[in-house]
């Protein structure tokens, strides 16, 4: 799908892009591209998965930044400012996409919790022991590690695309439930099921691929 429409604001709302960095210096979009291009691209790719779309989003981000650079007023760093613009572009992209493709049942439907709980017997709907949450050693030490970030991204990539998009919109961008429902044109219930599904799967993925593997000896 073409991203050309993204520049068009259907509701005619004002430009939401955050004000630029305070520095009064020259507008140097080519330096922005060299310094921040790869980071923005990685971020976009995690969110949309399609390389061409991710590239288009990065391009749109720089062009919008160029336009907004005149009203420099913000307090943020240059990179944070560019990320803010990219987030707006993503929101536009999600809205557009939700109009074009309805969610299929498999993407939004049944929670992936089935296998984790006893299906019957006295412990019905309780955790199956071997799949129940284990103790994680010093999780916060992992947060700052590059390897952990890689493992986490890997786990996110394993989610169905729509589920990952909704999860990241909520947890990375901190967008409210109501806003996400509007962007993706889904019901609150639909949203909660998808988030539940994402969290259930990600928790398990980290347990198996990170915390289970790398248990420090004490």
């Amino acid at each position, binding site marked *: 799908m073409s991203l050309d429409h993204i520049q068009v604001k259907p509701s005619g709302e004002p430009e939401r892009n955050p004000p630029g960095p305070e520095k009064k210096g020259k507008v140097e*979009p*080519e330096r922005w*591209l060299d310094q921040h*291009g*790869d*980071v923005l*691209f*990685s*971020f976009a790719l*995690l969110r949309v998965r399609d390389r061409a779309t991710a*590239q288009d989003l*990065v*391009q749109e981000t*720089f*062009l919008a930044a*160029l*336009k907004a650079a005149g009203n420099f007023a913000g307090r943020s760093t240059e*990179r*944070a400012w560019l*990320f803010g613009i990219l987030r707006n572009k993503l929101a536009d992209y999600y809205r557009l996409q939700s109009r074009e493709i309805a969610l299929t049942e498999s993407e939004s439907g049944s*929670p992936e*919790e089935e296998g984790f*709980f006893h299906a019957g017997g006295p412990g*019905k*709907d*309780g*955790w199956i022991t071997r799949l*129940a*949450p*284990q*103790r*994680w050693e010093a*999780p*916060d030490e*992992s*947060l*700052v590690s*590059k390897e*952990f*970030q*890689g493992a*986490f*991204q890997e786990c996110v990539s394993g989610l169905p695309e729509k589920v990952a998009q909704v*999860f*990241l919109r*909520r*947890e*990375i*961008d901190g967008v409210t*439930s109501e806003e996400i429902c509007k962007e993706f044109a889904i019901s*609150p219930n639909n*949203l*909660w099921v998808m*988030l*539940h599904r994402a*969290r*259930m799967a990600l*928790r398990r993925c*980290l*347990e198996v691929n990170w915390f289970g593997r790398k248990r420090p000896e004490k």
Partner: protein
Amino acid sequence: MLNCRQVTRLVSQSMDAKLRWYQRLGMRIHLLYCVWCRRYAAQLRFLRRASHHLGEEQADAVPQRLPPEAKQRIRERIQESMRDAHQE
């Protein structure tokens, strides 16, 4: 009494919306005696923290690089756009 399957749903939902009082009460009572669901709740909070780190500008991991030809294309579009702005 709520079971683990129900409680994991509520734990997740409580991170995105306000639960009703009886849901919250049921969840809390369950968490008092179920160590697995307690861990589950703590680990979901950890997921949230991990996501913040992943998304922020400070993320060091750059697993993907913009391909040179895409970079070139963007560079040209920027130059074009700057030329247009000058002519206005």
